[in-house]
C-alpha cells in the first residue's frame, strides 16, 4: 500500500490509465517537461511520449475545442486548464459544445473528455486563479462535475472520469494538493459518481460540503466536538450527478444543516442543496438551513482572502447558531 497526497494520486491515476488505454492523452499548458504548474503531469512526457503528453498553444478554447475533435477522432483527451478561473476564456467550448454535443448529434457523437482544473483559495495565488466557478457549469447540462476532497477519491474519481463516455469537469482543490497523505492503492479502482460520502458521523447537525470545504468542515467538526456538538460531515464528491438521497437521509437524521462552499453565496450550488432539502426533508428539519460561503464580491487579492473565504470560525459559529435554534 502506498501513501499519496492528492497531486501524487492524480499523477498516479493519469500514469496508470495512459498505460492501460493507449487512446488516453494529456494536453494543456506546460503539461510536458514542466509537468504542469502543480506537477500533476510530472514524468508523463518521458514515460508516454510527446504525442500523448502535449504542450498546446496558450489558448483555453483551443485546448477544449480540440479535445472535442480529438474525442471524435477516437482519442480520450484529458485536458488540463491551468486554473478553473481560466475556463472563462474557453467557456463556450464547454457549456455549448462539449456538454451539448451528444444531444446536438442525437447520440451520433459523444465527448469522452476530462477537463482537469485546479481551483480554490487559501494559497494567495494571483487574480483569476482561485475563483470557485463550479456552479456555472451546473447550468450547462450534459457535463458531469466532480469535486474530489482527498487523495483516495482523487484517484478513483479521476479514473472514473476518464472512462466516463461523457465530458467531465474535474476540479482539483489546489490548497489540499500536498496537505497530507493517505493510503492510495496502486492499480485500478474507481469511485462512482453520484455517491456522496459521509466522512464523519454525528448526531446534532450535518455539514454539507465538497472539495477543500470538506477539510474545513472536518476541522470545524473537531472544534464543535469540544463544545459537545456532534456533527456529521457529508462530502458530495460530485455536483452532477447530485446524490440527493444520501444528503436527504443524513439531514433527516440530524434535523439541522449547514452548507459550506468557497463559491459566492448567491446561486452557488449550496442554494440547490438547500432548496432540495427544503422540499425533500421539510418535515425532518428542526431549524432553518444555513450557508457559509464566500461573499458576493469579486474574489479579492490574496491579502484579503482569509476574510472572504468561509473559515472554521464562521462554520462553527453557524453550526452553533443552528443547533441552538
Amino acid at each position, binding site marked *: 500500500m502506498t501513501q499519496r497526497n492528492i497531486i501524487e494520486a492524480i499523477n498516479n491515476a493519469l500514469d496508470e490509465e495512459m498505460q492501460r488505454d493507449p487512446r488516453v492523452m494529456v494536453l494543456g499548458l506546460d503539461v510536458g517537461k514542466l509537468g504542469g504548474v502543480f506537477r500533476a503531469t510530472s514524468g508523463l512526457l518521458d514515460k508516454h511520449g510527446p504525442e500523448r503528453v502535449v504542450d498546446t*498553444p496558450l489558448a483555453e478554447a483551443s485546448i477544449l*475545442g480540440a479535445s472535442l*475533435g*480529438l474525442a471524435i*477522432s477516437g482519442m480520450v483527451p484529458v485536458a488540463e486548464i491551468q486554473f478553473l478561473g481560466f475556463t472563462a476564456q474557453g467557456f*463556450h467550448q464547454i457549456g455549448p459544445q462539449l456538454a451539448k454535443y451528444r444531444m446536438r448529434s*442525437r447520440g451520433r457523437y459523444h465527448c469522452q473528455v476530462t477537463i482537469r482544473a485546479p481551483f480554490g483559495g487559501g494559497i494567495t495565488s494571483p487574480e483569476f486563479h482561485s475563483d470557485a466557478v463550479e456552479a456555472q457549469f451546473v447550468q450547462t*447540462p450534459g457535463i458531469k462535475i466532480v469535486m474530489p476532497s482527498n487523495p483516495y477519491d482523487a484517484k478513483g474519481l479521476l479514473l472514473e472520469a476518464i472512462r466516463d463516455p461523457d465530458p467531465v469537469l474535474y476540479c482539483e482543490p489546489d490548497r489540499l494538493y500536498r496537505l497530507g497523505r493517505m493510503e492510495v492503492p496502486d492499480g485500478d479502482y474507481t469511485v462512482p459518481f*453520484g455517491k456522496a460520502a459521509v466522512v464523519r458521523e454525528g448526531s446534532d447537525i450535518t455539514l454539507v460540503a465538497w472539495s477543500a470545504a470538506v477539510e474545513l468542515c472536518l476541522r470545524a467538526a473537531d472544534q464543535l466536538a469540544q463544545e459537545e456538538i456532534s456533527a456529521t460531515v457529508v462530502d458530495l464528491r460530485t455536483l452532477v450527478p*447530485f446524490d440527493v438521497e444520501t444528503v436527504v437521509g443524513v439531514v433527516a437524521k440530524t434535523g439541522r444543516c449547514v452548507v459550506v462552499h468557497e463559491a459566492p453565496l448567491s446561486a452557488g450550488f449550496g442554494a440547490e442543496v438547500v432548496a432540495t432539502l427544503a422540499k425533500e426533508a421539510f418535515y425532518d428539519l428542526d431549524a432553518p438551513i444555513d450557508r457559509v460561503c464566500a461573499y458576493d464580491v469579486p474574489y479579492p487579492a490574496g491579502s484579503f482572502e482569509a476574510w472572504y473565504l468561509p473559515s472554521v470560525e464562521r462554520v462553527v459559529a453557524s453550526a452553533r447558531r443552528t443547533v441552538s435554534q
Partner: protein
Amino acid sequence: MTAVITKHSVLSPDGTLVKGAKPKVGDELLLEMLRWMLMSRTYDERATALQRQGKYGVFSPALGQEASVVASAMALDPARDWIVPQYRELMAVVRHGYPLERVAANGMGRISDASRIPDDVNVLPNQVALAAQLQHAAGLAWGLKLQKKDSVVMTYVGDGGSSEGDFHEALNLAGVMRAPVVFFLQNNQWAISTPSRRQTATQSFALRAAGYGFPGITVDGNDVLAVYEVATEAVRRARAGDGPTLIESLTYRMSFHNTTDNPSLYEDPKERDEAKRRDPIERVIKHLTRRGLWSDERDRETRASVRAEIDAALERAATYPPAEPSQVFEHVYAELPERLRRQRAELLGES
C-alpha cells in the same frame, strides 16, 4: 511555408475558359458537379417555399454559393475524409453521405435518432456558434493524424465567422500541429447585414494564413472548376502531411441570410444584379453548351430528375417520427442520472 495569395480562376462568367487555363476536371465530373449545384439551388427554393407555408424551420439557403459548396466537398473522399460544417453547406454534407431526407426531416422539426447523421458518415453536426467548429476540426484532424489515418478534414466558416477568436485559435493550433485540415472560408460578402469590409481591414482573408505558417489562397468561389482545383490541391497537401491550407472562396450570397432576414433593408440591388451576372450555375451551363455537352433537352431532363429526387426526399422526410416529449431527455448523458430520471417522469406524467 509562406502564404501564397493568388486569385485562382478557370471559368469566366460567360462560360469561356480563362486565358491559359487548362481545366483538370473531366466532363463526367463536371456534369456531376452541375447536377449537385442544381440540387442545391432547387432544394433552397423548395425549403424556402415550405418555410413560408409553415412546414419547415428557419432556413439558410446557399443560393449563389453552389460552386463553392459543391466543388469543395467533391475534393473529398467520403470513405475516409471528414466534413465539419458551419450551416450553409447543405449539399456538401449530402454529397458526403448524409441522406437528404434526414436533413430535410431535421428541417421540418422531425428530429430523432432516425434523422441523425448515419454512423458510417463522416460529418459533424451543423454549427451556429460560429467558428467553434474550427477548433473541433483542428482537434479531429490532429487526432486522425495521431492515429496514422490518411484522412483529411474539410471545415467551413464565413467572412463573419472569421472575426471570432476561435478562428484565430483554431488556425494557430492546426498550424502548430500540422494537422491535416482544410479551412474553407466562404466569403459571401455578408454576415447577415454586415458587409465583409466590417470584418477585416485587409484586402483578403486568405492573407491571414501567413500568420499561422501555412498557405492561404483566394479563389473565384463562383467558378466550380477553380474551386475544385484549389480544394483538391489543399486536400492533397493535407494528406501528404504538409499541414493545413486556408482557402478564401470569393462568392456572393444571392439570397437572404435566412428566412427571417430582409436584405432590401441593407443590400444595394446593384450588387445583387452584379452577382447574378457571375452566377455559378449559369456559367457552367454556358460552358457546357458551347462545348456541345448541354442542350435544352438535357437541361429539362436534369432539372426534372433533380426535382423528383428532392420531392421524394421531402415526402419521406414528412413521414419521419414527430417530436415526442420523452426525446427531451434522450442523449443528454450515456446514462440518465437519477435526478434527471425524476424530471423525465414529471414531464411524462409518470411521477
